[in-house]
């Protein structure tokens, strides 16, 4: 549940365990059987006037132009904020955890950033594409991802043409998306860029368009084969490379299991993937049912990504997500700003999530979730004292934080030992070291009572351990 989704409460985990592995995996993997009627943000549709609006801004006389441009940027920023909150909410409350987790995987895999795309509608559209094809066919997903407007902008394909092909997408589709370094030549990149010419962005209708006039219809030689290839041919040829299945299954395994597969395991995974006709869903089912996935070395040894940390904690603590601006700031501080990966390679993940800075930040952000104290929220979210004051005003009186009576029974709260056992079970699904448990007991002892504030303190302290950062 932690690895295929975003974790859950002890009761949810118990229910899943009772249903048996096979049934539990099917329930996760064949998510389309569960209805999900989350509405899209209301601005998430093409805007027929957008091109005209942008042209009008460009042509406006000077002081006005700047103001119009500022307004446009502000609008896009506002929508991006909404989009981030919308997605996080789906991860926390949505009925299909694996679909959202896969969407997160594809976002990291195709690593497109709003910083260059600068259009919230395009970012939403790409997010929906990942969700729709999350468990679909790899060839279809890779092709559609290449034709996706945000991607066309992100890797400059929208500007490539016959006379001067742009190599950016051509290179990354092989290096980062489908094959990996060393499985193509520089010549393949140059030729692939020619094949891809003609793939363009229809800015008026905000969708992909194929423009034969800018396509280089000449002969190309790619992977040793010669022909008048176009973009679709190229993607098919890439996916047909034996390395393609090795590459994508290795990445999926690493994402879900927490470490790269051995060479033998990766070969087996690739074979399984090819046998299933490059279908992601059936591959995932086999992977989640495989013995290797439950090897003891993989259990509780995966560093939570910041999103996993946030969404998982909210689910474990059965509390609300903090207001979106606080979530965005928190994720940025921890190193995973949604819709803004650091570069085309996406987030490195694994141990790279952790350094002295981000670890301390995790410890401190834990307080934000547990206490949801307005002053703390404001101080942590704000970059300047003025911002802190504004935020404090906005958040004053906001109820929140963990409801200890909701997540712990009266018996569990009866004494220190039952309390600590219940907290370990809920937060770690494992045990602290004796020495650590003693520290916590000392903390509780110094307080006397086991009231809300002490229990919240203990929650925050358990979240401020190395152990809590693993799932």
């Amino acid at each position, binding site marked *: 549940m932690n690895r295929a989704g975003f974790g859950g409460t002890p009761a949810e985990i118990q229910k899943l365990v009772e249903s048996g592995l096979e049934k539990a995996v099917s329930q996760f993997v064949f998510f389309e059987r569960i209805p999900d009627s989350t509405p899209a943000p209301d601005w998430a549709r093409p805007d027929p006037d957008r091109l005209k609006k942008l042209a009008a801004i460009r042509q406006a006389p000077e002081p006005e132009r700047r103001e119009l441009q500022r307004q446009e940027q502000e609008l896009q920023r506002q929508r991006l904020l909404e989009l981030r909150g919308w997605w996080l909410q789906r991860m926390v409350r949505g009925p299909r955890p694996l679909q959202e987790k896969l969407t997160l995987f594809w976002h990291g895999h195709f690593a497109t950033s709003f910083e260059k795309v600068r259009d919230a509608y395009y970012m939403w559209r790409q997010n929906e594409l990942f969700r729709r094809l999350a468990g679909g066919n790899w060839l279809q997903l890779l092709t559609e991802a290449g034709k996706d407007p945000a991607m066309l902008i992100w890797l400059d394909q929208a500007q490539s043409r016959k006379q001067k092909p742009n190599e*950016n997408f051509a290179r990354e589709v092989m290096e980062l998306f489908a094959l990996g*370094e060393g499985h193509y030549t520089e010549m393949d990149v140059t030729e692939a860029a020619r094949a891809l010419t003609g793939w363009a962005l229809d800015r008026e209708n905000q969708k992909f368009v194929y423009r034969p006039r800018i396509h280089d219809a000449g002969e190309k030689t790619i992977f040793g084969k010669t022909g008048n290839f176009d973009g679709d041919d190229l993607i098919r040829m890439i996916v047909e490379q034996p390395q393609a299945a090795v590459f994508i299954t290795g990445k999926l395994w690493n994402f879900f299991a927490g470490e790269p597969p051995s060479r033998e395991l990766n070969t087996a995974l690739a074979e399984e993937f090819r046998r299933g006709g490059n279908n992601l869903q059936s591959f995932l089912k086999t992977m989640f049912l495989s013995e290797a996935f439950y090897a003891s070395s993989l259990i509780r040894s995966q560093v939570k990504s910041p999103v996993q940390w946030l969404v998982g904690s909210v689910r474990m603590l059965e509390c609300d997500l903090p207001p979106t601006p606080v979530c965005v700031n928190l994720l940025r501080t921890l190193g995973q700003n949604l819709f803004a990966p650091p570069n085309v390679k996406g987030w490195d993940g694994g141990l*790279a999530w*952790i350094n002295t800075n981000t*670890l*301390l930040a995790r410890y401190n952000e834990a307080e934000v979730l547990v206490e949801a104290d307005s002053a703390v929220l404001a101080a942590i979210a704000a970059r300047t004292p003025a911002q802190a004051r504004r935020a404090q005003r906005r958040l004053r009186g906001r109820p929140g934080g963990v409801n200890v009576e909701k997540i712990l029974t009266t018996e569990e709260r009866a004494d220190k030992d039952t309390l600590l056992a219940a907290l370990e079970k809920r937060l770690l699904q494992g045990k602290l070291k004796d020495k650590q448990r003693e520290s916590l007991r000392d*903390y509780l002892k110094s307080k006397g009572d086991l009231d809300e504030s002490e229990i919240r303190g203990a929650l925050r302290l358990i979240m401020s351990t190395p152990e809590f950062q693993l799932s």
Partner: protein
Amino acid sequence: MKKEITLQTRRAFLRTTVLGGALSWTVPAFLSNTFSLLQAAAADSATQVATGRDSTILVVIQMAGGNDGLNTVVPFDNDHYRRARPKIGISNSQVLKLNDQLGLHPALGGFKAMFDAGELSIIQGIGYPNPNRSHFRSTEIWQTASDSERFEKHGWIGRYFDNACDGADPTVGVNIGRQMPQAFASKSLKGVSLDNPRNYRFISSERPMAGEADMMEQSFRGLNEAEDVNAGGSIGAIGGPAIRPGGSPLEFLERTALDAQVSSEKIRALADRVENRAVYPSSQLGNSLKLVAKLIGGGLPTRIFYASQGGYDTHSGQLGAQDRLLRDLGDSVKAFADDLKAQGNMDRVMVMTFSEFGRRVAENANGGTDHGAAAPMFIVGNRIKAGLQGTYPSLAPEDLFQGDLRHTVDFRSVYAGVLEQWLRTKSEPILGRKFAAFEVL
């Protein structure tokens, strides 16, 4: 030989004063007693280091994305250049002339001033054999100093820590930023990373009254003490390579938690206490260098600082983007140098820039340039061999490799020069083999 003695002193100091002081609240009482005894013994040598005036310091600035070297150090009079860059070429009336053939990008006024003052070295034509045009792979090659075909796990700076900084404080390497660069990856897990000193600590939820203990803070320490500190009780276990290489994720986390505590108090105190004495651009790089200047001024025992600036991947609209970035770079580094001079620390600091590659000689159709190969590096300092160094690669079409400049100096020769002449350590164990050390001093 005087250098050697200083380094010995430093290590002795690190084992005692700094770690002892910073750890007095993380270790049991019997241990801190040991520390104070050692500290008394080392008091004499410690004074020398505490003033922060001994060792040399290297500041590495990464220009991420692949900076276009041709428009940075511009061969403005070259016909091949003008033909290759009809739209985005920089003309001889715009460049800041270095001689009758080469000029700096017009936004690099900060660098030009330092060049004129003999504080800037421009090493031309830097690269490596079989250049790779992938950002990630080429960045990795620069960070690990590996051959193009070989994959290394640890970074060149990390191997410096492993080889030359045994027993040092984790703050021997400080990265300003959220993510640790691969260059810092090491066996001994040295180096810390931070972006904002204000939040670089465990912030307790308790507000104890004066004289009262903060129980949450105490419990936090108990929860984050690595096992070996309690069990072993040896000083070496704290600063040294206590955790076996390739340990579990949990061991890695425990070690990071300990390093965070050790470095947090020290760094925050310095950031609060030391004032900047120059005006920096209000950019990310400007802010990073501001903090580095404070930490140097306060005497943090750091040998290598690392800061970065991104955005050089100019496939389209290069003119505006590169102008903004280079202006920020030149002005930030100039302010940093002014600040260090005001502190009296400029003599022991060297700044070195790098970018994963230069860009294609011919511009593309979008007013930009695609990934290329060789490009210049900058070194700043007042004890360096200043001026134009090395040879500008030929731009003649027949001399290019797949449209890219061929390198004339291997970047690892520059690393070797910096390691041997500036950091005063043998470069061979760090770089894996012998590279002819480029004369940086």
